[in-house]
């Protein structure tokens, strides 16, 4: 019998990926009809065409919880060839919008998947949460103690989609919150040997860089004591975001390339930060890696937070062939977190 003790820090491999988007896509025409926001404004200034909501736009009824979407995505990842659900030894979920503060949503996901007696983690984070989850999973596998794990990212932003509110006179900064976001989840199975898709996770970057800096984005939560406070649930400093995210993205790209000892022209695919259709286009231009194919999804899926990297990976895997390399860049503007990861198909 083989023992795991002789193994040297194993590389992690992405064996499969699955995603879940709730219901039918909601286009700008529908959104403008429901919310009274100018359709053309959305197209020109945001550049997002469709998004998906877990909440019914007509009735406001919640049709899917975050746990539902995460479990749906995970089930798809677990159903892929070369993957065996009974091998899952841990779960890491990254999200900014858990269903409840307790129990952590990851445990409901485990329950829905029929997984038991395994460590579960939930990372409270915005756009970098999925990358952080990859980081934790990679470390666990590298420890030699675990061989197969499930990495999940997802967000249900429509919790803040107040359908009762009249936004006709709202400022653009406020309006953006209604048109930018969407809901969704993604999941990937990570293994210590190339199986299924057989894509090596080469490097994961996670770094807090916001010392002394005001947050670019705040999502409040309310309890019994402060639930009637007249605070905005969602605050974004769009000026700061527009200014800083492209700069940070470029730094992440070059830091990762340096760490990997890859040349920019060796990159076959680039997975840029997915803020909105328009912002992502702008950042991609600034990243300026013309030889790499851009893999973006936000214009069709909306900004669904921690689901985005999985949606990008899913698109990537459709075309990636053996020996090709991809690099993903993510920025969480809340407290200015740099994130990224690199993939290489075996």
């Amino acid at each position, binding site marked *: *019998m*083989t023992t*795991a003790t002789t193994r040297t820090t194993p590389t992690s491999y992405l064996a499969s990926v699955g995603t879940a988007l709730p219901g039918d896509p909601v286009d700008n025409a529908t959104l403008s009809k429901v919310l009274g926001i100018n359709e053309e404004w959305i197209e020109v200034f945001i550049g997002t065409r469709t998004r998906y909501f877990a909440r019914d736009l007509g009735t406001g009824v919640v049709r899917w919880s975050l746990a539902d979407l995460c*479990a*749906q995505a995970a*089930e798809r990842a677990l*159903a892929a*060839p070369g993957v*065996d*659900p*009974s*091998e899952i*030894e841990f779960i890491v979920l990254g999200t900014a919008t858990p269903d409840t503060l307790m129990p952590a949503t990851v445990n409901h996901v485990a*329950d*829905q*998947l*029929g997984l*038991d*007696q*395994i460590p579960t983690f939930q990372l409270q984070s915005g756009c970098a949460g999925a990358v952080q989850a990859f980081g934790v999973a990679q470390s666990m596998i590298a420890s030699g103690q*675990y*061989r*197969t794990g499930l990495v999940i990212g997802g967000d249900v932003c429509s919790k803040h989609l107040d359908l009762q509110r009249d936004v006709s006179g709202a400022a653009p900064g406020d309006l953006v919150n209604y048109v930018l976001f969407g809901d969704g989840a993604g999941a990937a199975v990570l293994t210590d040997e190339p199986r299924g898709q057989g894509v090596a996770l080469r490097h994961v970057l996670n770094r807090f860089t916001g010392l002394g800096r005001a947050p670019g984005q705040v999502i409040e939560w309310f309890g019994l004591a402060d639930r009637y406070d007249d605070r905005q649930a969602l605050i974004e400093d769009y000026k700061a975001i527009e200014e800083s995210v492209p700069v940070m993205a470029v730094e992440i790209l070059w830091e990762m390339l340096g760490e990997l000892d890859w040349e920019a022209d060796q990159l076959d695919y680039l997975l840029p930060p997915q803020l909105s259709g328009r912002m992502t286009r702008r950042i991609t231009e600034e990243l300026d890696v013309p030889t790499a194919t851009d893999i973006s999804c936000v214009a069709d899926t909306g900004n669904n937070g921690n689901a985005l990297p999985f949606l990008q990976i899913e698109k990537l895997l459709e075309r990636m062939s053996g020996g090709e390399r991809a690099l993903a860049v993510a920025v969480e503007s809340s407290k200015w977190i740099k994130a990224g990861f690199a993939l290489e198909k075996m």
Partner: protein
Amino acid sequence: MEPVAIVGIDCRFPGAPDTGAYWDLMMRGADGVGEVPRQRWDAKEFHSEAGEEGHSNTTQGGFIADPDAFDDEFFTISPREAAAMDPQQRLLLQSAWRAVEDAGIAPRNLAGTSTGVFVGIMGNEWAQLHLTDYANVTAQLGSGNGYCMTANRISYHLDLKGPSLAVDTACSSSLVAAHLAVNALLSEECDHAIVGGVNVALTPALSIFYTQAGLSAPDGRCKPFSAEADGIGRGEGVGVIVLRRLRDAIADGQRVYAVIRGIAVNQDGRSNGLTAPNRWAQQDVLGAAYRRAGVEPSDVVFTEAHGTGTGLGDMMEVKALGHHHADRGGKPMALGSVKGNLGHTEGAAGIAGLIKVALSLHHRVVPASRFAAKENKQLKLRDHGLRLLKAPLRLPAGPTVAGLSSFGMGGTNAHAVLESAPGHAARPEPVNGAAPGGVGAAVFTLTAPNAEALRRNLLAQADAAAARRVPLGPLARSSNRVKAGHRHRFATAATDTGELVARLRESAAAPELLDRLSGRPAGRPRVAFLFTGQGSQYPRMTAGLYEQSPLYRHFLDEADAALLPHTGRSVRDLVLADDAAVHSTRWTQPALFAVGYALGRTLMALGAHPGMLLGHSVGEFAAAVLARALPLDGAARLVAARGALMQELPPGGGMLSVKASREDVRQWTEQEPLVGLGAVNGPASTVLSGDLEALERIGAKLAAEGLTTRELQVSHAFHSPLMRPVLDRFAKIAAEVGGGVPEIPVYSTVRGRVLDGEALDASYWVEHISATVLFGDAAAALLAEGPTHLVEIGPRPVLSGMVRRLDQPAAGAGPAHVLPVHGPESAGPALAEALAELYRGGVEPDWDAVYAPEDRVAHPLPPYSFSTEHRYWARNPVRAPGTAAVATAPAPAAHPEPGTGPASVLTLDRPGGPADPVADAVLGAVRLVGGYTDIGPHDRLYEDLGFDSVMIMELKNRLEARLAGIGTLTVQDLLPRLSSVGDLVAFLRELGATVTGPVNFGTEENRALMEEERTA
């Protein structure tokens, strides 16, 4: 040895009514032990703390719930026979059925195979209670008792032809049974083996024995290897597993819980006492099992111990294990025993342990051993290379080896070595991955012997599907494969699991919905395909189906490829695009042909094989291909040429539909040489075809007569004299293509009848162009042959309505109309629903074609949920001798809720009905013999009432006693007339039977006997 796979499991243990609950009980470290139920014996009467003679020192034990419930109707066992059966037989029978289902096999599919049945059992208390009451020993009691019958009954009811035997080696019985089963599989004596163990405590005898032998724990609980261990507590249970050679299980894509790598049995011979545990024999059997498995002791990660919790037993077992494990490197071997949760389940102990180990390897975690926290330090476990499972042990990824011990009181010891399922077997590869498949929706099916059972099982399936995320395709496919074989067939289409759950619950709640979604096919279905003709086409017809169904896509692509050389442009692309060109006859004809061919072939691939074909006009080409009268390429060439030639004809032709008979319109067509009779769709539905101006003239005259007319949206005057210019050129092509005699009967719309050995050749297709479409005649001829299902093959239903308007040739319900495509919105779900309807009507689909290859994997479903309505038990609980017989017993054979008796059985003798003394007498006799309360003339003696030869002899005697004028009945006379109770009554009347005694003979006597016999 060659590895043997555990592929199916079912069990019931104290506090755990099924396998899932058993696992939960163990994982929660829960206690299944409680007070002795009043139903068994009066524990207080037999209790003595000091353990006096004839007494037990405990009133506790591990008892299963509802041991008296038995679904006799499911197995067509008469109530009288059920009441005479040892409950251990009944429990095993139900559990065996469920275990086979859990293995992903419809139990009926094992019928006639050499499947073996091996049962471990050591309790025979039912016989001790009943076979000693000599005055009341009946034929049923004979077969209701005895170890052999526990196994033989399973073989009988499942019709299994392999070895069938029961083993008694006391507490090791069921692991020894597994040993025999493994050997039978390895010697290829059988390909499937059902291994069971059972133990039901009916008397306090063993409790008293354990007490008197100083082995009984005062709290009735085994505390294995614990400092508090003070003896045995008794437990009950039933467990059944299904075994196969691992290679066979993998080849069949079965889910494998775990693998038996080695198993050994020995005896301690003339040890120091017949019943004393023997360390040396135990260590030998461990060594033998390790050798047979080819493992080193240090490979074994955990062992499920015999672990009865007696001081001596625990010590011996630890020493025997220590012999092999004391000097192992690394971690000590983990040790535990489920007896801490259940008590000692005696004859079922081996199977309880085997199931625990299999589930542990399956779930990759070993439950904690109850009472392990307070370890018995004197055992010095660490020195023996052992540690107690004080907490659940999570197993690492990769193969894990485990051991299982079961030791018999008389010294017959058994040990098994198990391993986790190989990675690829735990999750089977898709079956037949290359074959195209998938209709774009799933079809969930379930069968049951009656409507109530259907409801109960629909709810069980709904609950399981709702409990956690389950993939719909594999779930539905498993329902098709496993839940088959009973008379009532439920089927519904679904596109996601949530929708399915809702539909199952609605069906269980609403009788009319259940009625609509279920069928009771009486005979073999006769399916007819009706292919639509021109007029049914529209842009993007069947586009939804093409997108969703890979199977349909495959066949439409095939038709398109056949047409392409003759059309020059992809007909498929034209059909799928939103292109009005589909209405020009050049494209209409090949497009309808492609759709008809693809839909027809799709249904055939799904297992719906037509016995009759009919095509309306151009629909006849696809019918001819399906009938193998034309090759696909030839038909494609003909249709393309036909459409193109007709397109070239000058405009100016049209068609006029008239609500009149062909005779009524003849006078008008005779006056107009350029107008002919295009089609006769029914007795009052005729289509005129020809020159537009002439049609206008006729139309005006018809309107003047008050007849309804309608101009059809067609480009040309099909089936009219205006078609003549194309005939010569078409004939040349048709001659090259040729054509043969259909292999499936074709009801020709040229001839208006079935073709009788006539070829669908060039002259037929030439005549077809201008001949009147005799749809009404052809359809009437087809209906006269009694089809059960008319499947309309086309982009929208047209012909079904026409058929409905025809006068039905025969009285009765008429055929079911099945519509795989409803119209523009139709896609996968409609096709799936059409298949569901065909299945409800008796068609046996080729289910794999319904699902995409990746969905063709085994998925476990909850096993059959048996009725608990009927209960059978000993008349009175066991009492100490000399105690007054007080009626403290719960009502025997009581229904759990009064008034919920089965309502589906028809009765002949409802109070107030017309008096028929002979029928009453016969019904009374049948009731008495079978122990039924409620039977009717439609009940079949064998199939419904479970009569056998012994019962028929008794029935004959009872009939002779009750009826005069029938002379001496011989069994030979009787046998041919026993198809149903009504048949028997008719036969006796023919003989001139009259009643000897009072008319109501039987009612009172019957009731009294019923009470008595049900309690047996």
